Each structure stands twice: as C-alpha cells, then as structure tokens.
C-alpha cells in the first residue's frame, strides 16, 4: 500500500463519519520502490490529498517546485507498506495490511445502515 492510498482512505465504521480520517498507520514492513518521477502526475495528486500537516513554505506554485514535487513523489509513491495496520482514530478498530493490501472488510455489526 502506497502512502498516497493511505491518505485517501477513511474509516467506514458505523457512526464514525468524518472523524474516521486519517487512519493511523503502523507499518511493520516497508519497502522503498523506485518509481519513475512524473511531475505532472504528482502535481495533480496533491490537491486530492487531505493534508493534515501543511508543508513548510508557501503552497502556491507547488506545481513548479521540482524539489517539493520530488519529495512528495518519494513519500507518496515510492514508500510501500507491505505489512502493518491501519487504525480508525475514532473507534479504534484495527485493519490489517498484508502483502501490501489493506483488509478493510467490516463485519455485519460494524457496517453502517
């Protein structure tokens, strides 16, 4: 699971709503994969992110800030969590990540009506 994906997931446990974001990530096995840098693609992904922390420095003009884009590229696309857990910040429910795939299936009781 790439960190870009982690950023786009939110908890769907019943009653949690918008408080289910962001999921707390605990990684036990991580791999760094080199991925071809595509500044356009990274620039387009950034507005989709729900940034909890604002990066230092001005955000305007980030599309042309290659250093910033490369940093984001590395963090979002090159870090792959192979094993770990995601935790709903509100309910505490844990979702395991195994072989790079997060398992977020809920049991019947946990699902929203």
């Amino acid at each position, binding site marked *: 699971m790439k960190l870009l*994906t982690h950023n786009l997931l939110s908890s*769907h446990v019943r009653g949690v709503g918008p408080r289910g974001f962001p999921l707390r990530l605990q990684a036990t096995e991580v791999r760094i994969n080199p991925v071809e840098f595509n500044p356009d*693609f990274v620039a387009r992904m950034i507005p989709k992110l729900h940034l909890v922390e604002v990066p230092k420095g001005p955000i305007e003009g980030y599309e042309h800030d290659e250093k910033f884009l490369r940093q984001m590229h590395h963090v979002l696309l090159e870090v792959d969590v192979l094993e770990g857990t995601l935790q709903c910040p509100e309910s505490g429910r844990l979702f395991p990540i195994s072989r790079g795939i997060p398992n977020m299936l809920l049991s019947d009781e946990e699902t929203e009506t």
Partner: protein
Amino acid sequence: MLKKLKSAERLFLLIKKQFPLNVSSVSKGKIFNEMQRLVNDDPESWLSAISIWKNLLELDAKEDKLSQRDANPLKRKVEENDIINPKKLKTKQMQELQESRECQLEKQTDEATVEQGDFLTNREKSQEAFQNDAVKAVAAPNQKDLTFRVSCRCSGSVAKTFTAQEVGRVIGIALMKQFGWKADLRNPNLEIFIHLNDIYSVVGIPVFRVPLASRAYIKTAGLRSTIAWAMASLAEIKAGAFVLDPMCGLGTILLEAAKEWPDVYYVGADVSDSQLLGACDNLKAAGLQDKIELLKVSVIELPLPSESVDIIISDIPFGKKFKLGKDIKNILQEMERVLRVGGTIVLLLSEDHHRRLQDCERGGIPWNSKGSHTDEPGIEKCLNPGEKTDLSDTVSSSAETSGQGDLDKMPPFGSLVPVDRYGVSLGRTGAFICRYRKSPSSAASRLAAVSRFQSSQGSCTALKAVVSGSR
C-alpha cells in the same frame, strides 16, 4: 502497430466478400462448384492477400525491434487507425465485438522503415503494384512451401445443407490444386477463415496467429480484454484522475486502462482473497504494480470519503455465477456516494441487472430509497456531503410531512444521469455497457422542489435559512 487496436477481437485480411451462396433450389454439387470458384476464379487476389500478410508480419517483427526509435510517421498512422475503429465501434459495431472482424486495410508505410507501396486489398489494384508485391513475395519464402488450414463457419441456410467440415474440405482441396500448398491441421503457416451465412460469403486470413484480444501483458484474463478496454475508453480517463474499480476481480479493466492511460491513479478493490492474489500476479506480470493499488474492501462499504473518486468502472458480477450478497441498488448507491460531481461511472451489466435498473428508471421508484428517508441523500448533498448533521434530519422530516408524491417522480437515480448504453456480446450471453454521469443539478432541483412544497406550508423561510446558512 496493429496490436494497438484494443477493442477488436480478431483482425483479418479480406480476400473475398460476395453475395451469399444460393442454396435453395440448386444441387449440392453445383454449390460445391460455387465454393471452389471462391478459390479458382481469382487466384491473384489470394496471392496478393498472402503477400500483404507476409509483409505485415515482417513489419510487425521489425517494429518490435524499432520500438525504441522515434518513428513519428508510424505513430501518426496508428492514431488514424485507432480513430477509425473506435468510431466504428461506437456507432454500429458494439454488438459485433464478439464476432470475427474483417477489416479492409488501407495503410501507408513510412519509407524510412520499410520500402513498400500502398497496400490495398481491393481487387482493383493496378497491375504494376501487383507485380511489385508479387516480386517481393518471391523474395520471401516460396509460396509453394506454405502449409495451411481452413477454418469454416456456416450459419443460416447454408448450415442446413452443409457442415463446416464439408465446406472446409472442398475449399482445402481447391486450394491445394490451385496453389500447391499443403494442408497441416496442427501447426499451419497460414490459416484461412471462411464465413458463409445468409448475408455474405467471406474469405479472409487472420493477420496474427493469436487473436488481438489475447494480450501479451495480461497473464490471467477475467473479463474479455476487448470489453474491458471499451469500458475504459468510454470512461474518458484523463491524466491525474482517480479511477476506482470496486469489484476488480483479476483486475482486467484496470490493466487495460493503465496500459493505455498511464498517468492516472488506479485503485482496485475486491472481497475475495483469491481474486486479489490473481490481480496482484497480473499486475506484476504486466509491470503495472506501481500504477494500480489493491484493497480488500466491499463495494457497499467503501472506506473512501464522499465525492473523492473521479471515475468508477466496474463489471458487475452476473448473478448466477457469483453470489451477490447485496442488491445492485446498494452497490450503485455507494458508488454514487464516493463519486465526485461530474464524475463518470461505466458499468457492465447483465441483461437481468439492466432490466431491473430500467424498471426503476421507468417506474420512477427512487432506487436509492431508504424506507421513509427517500430524498435524504439528495438533500444531504446540498448541505454537507458526507456529514450526517441534525439539520438534514429536520429538513428531510419536514419534506416528508409536506407530501412526497411529487418528489418521487424526480430522477430516480439520485444524481446519476444515464448518458448512454451499448449492447455487447460476451460470446454466449449478451450484456450492456452503461455509462452514467453524476450531475450537480439534481441536488439543486430537489431543493427547489422541496421549497415549492414548503411555501404552501409556511415553513419555507425556516428551510431556506437552514440551506443558505450552511452554504
């Protein structure tokens, strides 16, 4: 280059196309003669088709070597071809995706790569051009050494009188006599396809040994690659989009899409471990594991914020084979929630699913009804998408008391507006590719309708204040 034709099942060089064989009152022997004439009347057209075929194969082999080089003129021609075919598909041939396709090829090749003239399968080619090709054919392995096999398909009235084997044999013998080729049923150089039915008699040779639909980059196919590609192209994928397949299975749709539109963020989801493992394998085999992310989630509970996805493409499992736990309505509901306004959904629906959805559309039954809170989702969207606040409860309950009769006649799909649909064949069964777009307007129009009702009740001011205050 030809392999860039992604929604064609197979590609043939046409040798002959003519009126259907008349089988009604004529003796069987005479009809056999007719068939032989397909071969004997015009041997040049056969030979020229074969030389074109050889040239195409050589061209293809050379292209694989030249793929690194910048061959701009070739690329331009590829685009032409690509444009022609998708258009044909959209206008009239979506239904024929399954059938073997015969294409008349007109190509111009770049002098820098291959020195050849125009290819035309048309019989009115000039003698000169024919001589050219015939000369080149000689340069290639001698045509007399060709081994061949005849594949025959008969339907309609022809099929009532002849079996495919009989026809195949007749043609085969004629070919051996005319050209001196040898028959090889196991591993021939050349395959000859004959299709006889009530509409036409067609003879052609497949350009590639393996059907176009069989992709080099897909290890294990789930959905037909041609349909998967067609769905992806209908979805209007643009660079930087977030594309989701919430029932991805082995990931065929995402693979086809990622191959063609690479600068996009793809996510596939499935509930089945075995499918996800297969998908993972497929991604690695295709080298696309960096482009496509996988999740083990259920399509009716997507762990995604509302309105966060740009495009959803999905093959809805056909009821009999897969155990579909929930209704298709619930599935569409969740898809609608995560889709952003203006986003596109492309679905492959079985005839059953499609009929069910059509009934909803016509009957005006809101498919996203949740018992008494019929238009709650719509109003929710006006206020704050994704948040269930107390305000929305108040609003919806007051809407209920004022009478829902008229509201029920609103577009029943919530904000999903059907754009178009195409009937396709999956071989034994048929299905529909349906495209929807999420419109912003229905939220506003629902609001207007509610206000209209409220005005007669006198609680209009309260409602308007609630809505305008939250904007």
